[in-house]
């Protein structure tokens, strides 16, 4: 009568292992995000740039933090400051947890956006914001990695011009995996909700 116990235990352990494996595989998709999911569609965070203190930094320096990646430039008078002002409100709503979040503002205008200029700029918005700049090549590589278009071209005779740039805010988890996509018109509450999920999951 003792024999059946061993297979039963083995069966139980096998079933448990399967559950854990499945849970492991599905873990990234299990969180009930409100924003557009980009897991598996966008590559992990990876770059080598100069921060607004003039220090060379890589994506590894931000492991352990939930990262918001946004492309812009300081001479953008309307949408970029609006986006950063919105993100400041989001960070305020996160309270103490905001310390585990970094907003990476990557300049697509590295000629004018020196580390010093970026330093003054990002500090005017939220203390968790880091300004990043670098060589034109390094910036282009990063914008291409996330398919973030940028152009600045004359469109009229009388000095008129048109600037266009990606308005997306890419959200990465503490391990540098791309998770959700936010935009300047995303309701702040939805972004706060998803950031809390990432911060609380510890994943």
């Amino acid at each position, binding site marked *: 009568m003792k024999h059946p116990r061993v297979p039963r235990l083995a069966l139980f352990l096998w079933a448990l292992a399967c559950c854990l494996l499945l849970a492991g595989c599905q873990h990234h998709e299990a969180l009930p995000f409100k924003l557009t999911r980009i897991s598996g569609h966008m590559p992990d965070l990876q770059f080598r740039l100069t921060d607004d203190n003039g220090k060379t930094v890589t994506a590894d320096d931000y492991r352990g933090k939930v990262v918001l990646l946004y492309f812009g430039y300081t001479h953008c008078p309307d*949408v970029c400051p609006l986006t950063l002002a919105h993100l400041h409100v989001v960070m305020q709503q996160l309270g103490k947890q905001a310390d585990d979040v970094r907003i990476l503002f990557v300049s697509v205008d590295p000629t004018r956006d020196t580390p010093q200029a970026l330093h003054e700029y990002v500090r005017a918005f939220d203390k968790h914001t880091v300004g990043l700049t670098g060589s034109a090549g390094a910036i282009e590589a990063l914008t291409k990695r996330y398919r973030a278009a940028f152009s600045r071209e004359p469109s009229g005779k009388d000095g*008129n011009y048109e600037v266009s740039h990606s308005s997306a805010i890419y959200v990465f988890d503490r391990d540098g995996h791309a998770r959700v996509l936010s935009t300047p018109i995303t309701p702040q509450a939805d972004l706060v909700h998803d950031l809390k999920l990432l911060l609380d999951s510890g994943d």
Partner: protein
Amino acid sequence: MKRRAILLAGLLVAGLAHADAGVPVTASHAWIRVLPGNLPAGAYVVLHNDGAKPLALTGADTAAYGEAMLHESSSTGGVSRMRTIDALPIPAHGTRTLAPGGYHLMLMDAKHPVHPGAKIRITLKFDDGSTLPVDFLARPASALSDKD
């Protein structure tokens, strides 16, 4: 009592802005987002056309900045765009709002540093040749409107 009410109403209108003889436009919620250094700033305002004829805002002048340009930001398909515009129509008895993420005045080349709290006089120009001086409140970079 009646006289007092009229006086009060007059003060209120004056407080909102302008009253240039002949301009049927009133301005309210006028503010500027001040950015560090000498970066271009966005200026925002709500314009109401009290007149029976449509008008168009065609530009602005200010002694505080070297240049003021009329711009429009838009976000479609995940891309933000900014373009210059020549004229911004304000319908008869209608309102036109210049707000972050849409229509705005881009102020460039500040003559002196502008600090939050300052009032900056900007003269709005319309297509019928009329002008309207409006005091814009300078606000910090992280502001989202003319008030907290």
